[in-house]
């Protein structure tokens, strides 16, 4: 079958004048299973390929098997496309495609759509056989218009049926074509994507999808009077686009780790899926253990045998792993533990974002178990932090926890292609004879560091134990030995901290308020700060990558601001609770670290934070600051 070339049809210049916008937010929502996720991700990828910055967020149904046409069933994707780098999901959507009107309500309910937004709505429901559906559709249409949305009724199904026999399975590609017309996307790039995606399914499937895209493009070109042009900021660095879990997986390979031992848990699992498909190319293996405890135990066995492993999990899995994490601290076994945080407590919100595991990461272990905890703030950092984490785990001989979250895990972003270096990859296990004068825990007085013998090394024999032990790994109950060994393990954090640099303040070095964040909120916080500074407010922000130990100099930075507050995605009480107030997790830690009366604002909406809401909160806290509440600052 011959497929028309892009430039014969789709790429021809049109008479309509496109509106130039610096960024736009598009959402595609459907009942689950209708392919809106795929459509959104491909739209994001194509946009990135054209040189735009993108950030995509999955819209996840509230129920596993939601009933058809229900608010609980909205599934899809939000794609924010911009001129330069896009760092977060933004505020409200500018254009929404809805496969039925009911799923759209779930987005209206959470205020995700801007007044004045354009809505492309499947119109087949107005002629449905069921009177209830016809009435619901008509009522919704009137309601949408009264809310200020501009609705475009689109006969998606009818048009798709002209090309394929099963419209339900083709609508997403048809819509991808329609969006490509509206946003002037180069459809030849879509062809290449389709080719890649459906290669295994054969040419017929590729052709049918290509035809759907073309049909959607042509229909929209002829019938929809909307054109947006999002300029591109030219860049000559090679760029990649992927989500955070893939970045973690690739980072694991680039770090030279060879074993990923895991137990399936949302939203961490897709990182191991990625590895399962690609790890063998670097000689690595994914072990799916019988449970979370076995997963980390298996990893620690490999670590003892000289191969630094990774285990990837989420909150409930982290809870199960804590006994072994404490063990790894005590026995000083290198391991990288990735915790893709999700909503809690307990099984909480399995598919949704939260930053609720920070204190658990630091403290959830039997006894006082000092360990390194890091949090990447971007998808790019998800990659690079794996390399750093492995290096730190081996140099400091212990567990390194890396906290990402569902926002990073499933969001897609473009970033400069990493330059992989051979020195990141592990050297083979050293099996040369052990120097008998060196003890298995020959703790350096200043740094707490020691060298570790690995099985196979002649003369290095020792018995690793989770019991209190001396430098020879001899089980020891003497109080002085316990004090000394605890000191050695703790000192490692102080030694690491000395090597870290003071974090940079975003904005001016002094001001009225400093917003402190960690993890995936970076983009939203900095965008909020930009807006506030444009309004003339003296607001800056600081983003922490190391949570244990903290980067140095925080107290001094805080002293240059009238007020310091954290912004986080975990629960905290409102300031009106006074002394009874429970604080957000980073605020809690920063207070003990700096003795500054750090304020906080946090929320657990199950979605990433939008810059608009952060800016609103800061405005209101600043105005409180002008009043008697100023007493609460510093």
């Amino acid at each position: 079958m011959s497929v028309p070339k892009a430039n014969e049809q789709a790429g021809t210049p049109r008479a309509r004048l496109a509106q130039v916008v610096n960024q736009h937010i598009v959402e595609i929502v459907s009942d689950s299973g209708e392919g809106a996720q795929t459509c959104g991700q491909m739209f994001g990828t194509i946009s990135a390929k054209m040189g735009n910055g993108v950030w995509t967020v999955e819209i996840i149904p509230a129920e596993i098997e939601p009933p058809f046409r229900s608010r609980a069933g909205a599934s899809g994707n939000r794609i924010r496309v911009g001129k330069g780098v896009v760092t977060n999901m933004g505020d409200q959507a500018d254009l929404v495609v809805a496969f039925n009107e009911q799923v759209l309500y779930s987005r209206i309910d959470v205020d995700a759509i801007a007044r004045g937004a354009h809505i492309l709505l499947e119109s087949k429901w107005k002629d449905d056989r069921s009177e209830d559906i016809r009435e619901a559709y008509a009522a919704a249409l009137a309601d949408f218009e009264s809310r200020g949305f501009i609705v475009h009724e689109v006969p998606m199904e009818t048009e798709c049926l002209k090309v394929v026999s099963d419209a339900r399975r083709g609508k997403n590609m048809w819509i991808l074509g329609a969006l490509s017309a509206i946003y002037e996307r180069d459809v030849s790039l879509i062809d290449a994507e389709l080719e890649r995606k459906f290669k295994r399914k054969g040419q017929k499937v590729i052709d049918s999808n290509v035809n759907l895209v073309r049909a959607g493009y042509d229909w929209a070109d002829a019938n929809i009077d909307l054109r947006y042009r999002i300029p591109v900021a030219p860049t000559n660095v090679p760029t990649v686009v992927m989500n955070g879990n893939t970045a973690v997986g690739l980072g694991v390979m680039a770090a030279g780790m060879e074993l990923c031992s895991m137990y399936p848990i949302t939203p961490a699992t897709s990182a191991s899926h990625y590895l399962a498909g690609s790890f063998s190319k670097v000689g690595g293996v994914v072990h799916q253990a019988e449970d979370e405890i076995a997963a980390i135990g298996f990893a620690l066995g490999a670590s003892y045998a000289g191969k630094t492993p990774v285990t990837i999990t989420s909150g409930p899995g982290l809870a199960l792993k804590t006994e072994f994490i404490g063990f790894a601290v005590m026995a000083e076994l290198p391991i990288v533990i990735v915790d893709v945080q999700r909503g809690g407590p307990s099984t909480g919100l399995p598919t949704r974002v939260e930053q609720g595991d920070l204190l658990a990461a630091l403290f959830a272990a039997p006894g006082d178990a000092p360990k390194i905890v890091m949090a990447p703030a971007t998808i790019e950092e998800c990659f690079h932090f794996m390399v750093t984490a492995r290096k730190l785990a081996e140099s400091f001989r212990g567990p390194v926890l890396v906290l990402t979250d569902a926002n990073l895990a499933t969001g897609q972003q473009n970033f400069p292609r990493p330059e992989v270096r051979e020195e990141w990859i592990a050297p083979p296990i050293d099996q040369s004879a052990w120097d008998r004068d060196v003890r298995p825990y020959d703790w350096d007085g200043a740094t707490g560091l020691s060298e570790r013998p690995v099985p196979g090394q002649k003369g290095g024999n020792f018995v690793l134990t989770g019991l209190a032990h001396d430098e020879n790994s001899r089980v020891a109950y003497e109080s002085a030995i316990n004090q000394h060994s605890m000191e050695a393990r703790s000192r490692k954090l102080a030694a690491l901290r000395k090597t870290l640099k003071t974090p940079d303040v975003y904005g001016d070095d002094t001001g009225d308020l400093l917003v402190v964040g960690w993890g995936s909120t970076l983009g939203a916080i900095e965008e909020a700060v930009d807006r506030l500074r444009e309004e003339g407010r003296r607001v800056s922000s600081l983003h922490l990558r190391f949570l244990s130990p903290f980067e140095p100099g925080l107290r001094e930075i805080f002293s240059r601001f009238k007020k310091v507050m954290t912004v986080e995605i975990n629960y905290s009480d409102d300031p009106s609770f006074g002394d009874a107030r429970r604080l957000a997790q980073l605020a809690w830690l920063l207070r003990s670290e700096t003795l500054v009366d750090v304020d906080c604002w946090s929320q657990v909406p199950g979605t990433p934070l939008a810059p608009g809401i952060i800016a609103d909160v800061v405005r209101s806290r600043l105005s409180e600051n002008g009043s008697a509440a100023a007493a609460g600052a510093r």
Partner: protein
Amino acid sequence: MYELKQDWMPPERPQSYCLEDYEGGAPRWCPGCGDLAVLSALQRYVRDQQLPPEKIVVVSGIGCSSRLPHYVKAYGFHGLHGRALPVACGVRSRRPDLHLFVATGDGDCCAIGTAHWIHAIRYNMNMTVMLLDNNIYGLTKMQSSPTTGKGHYSNTHPGGAPLSAINPLLTTLSITNASFVAQTADWNPPHLYATLAAAHAHKGLSFVRVLQRCPHFMAGYFDELQKDPSLVRLLTHENGIAVDPAVQKAFPNRVEHDPGDLAGAMKFAGDRETHPIGLLYRNDQAESYDTFMASGLGTPANVKVAAIERELDRFTI
């Protein structure tokens, strides 16, 4: 005296190890504890085999028996309660070159570690697992274990254990991929030694249950077996564990049992009247997870970098 065959000679090695080379810290078990017999059999066996100490890893969990690695001068991993098997599997996963022994107890393996036990059998990775089963928790001072017999007194069940014990042999035999299941007793060192030897020689996971005396908390528990030899059934076969005349004399109730016969193995294991001693089951054809785990070992760094570059190409725009 413990060699399998009289005419067997150890191959010549550049260095020869003596028993002392395998002696770790002084054992701190109670006098008469069956664990001592296991330790000594293991040390003698590795000495006779001249296994380099640096190539031996002994992994354990928590409990009296799990102290065993501390007393062997080799590499040891004294881990967490119930978690010896996942650790051992992890060690094995990337190190086919090491000799791996696991010491676990009935609480460790059959209570808190049950899931790991079942799956380790299924993974069938090359290692020798010794279940030192004394039918009681010793380290924490006499609580019922899953193998404590019904009605037996313990601190958690002063009125007698309310339920029947689980049968570790039957359980193991019933798990897919079981490849070596044997039982021996601490009070018969030659049989214990021969069992460890056969277990170590077997490729795959060898599960050896040792009936282990705890004179401290289960004094006299196995006396009956020692006094009345008819209660023990010695399994022999040309494919089984070699027995010398002394063993035969100690266990005169002897039956031929082909270890390839799983149904027969289950019959002996499930017999409520007698205890089998010997090799119940062996399947050299059982699949092993080792093959899967060891794939790609030793891939050179430059090959890895090239592969990662190709992966990055897939995401490059």
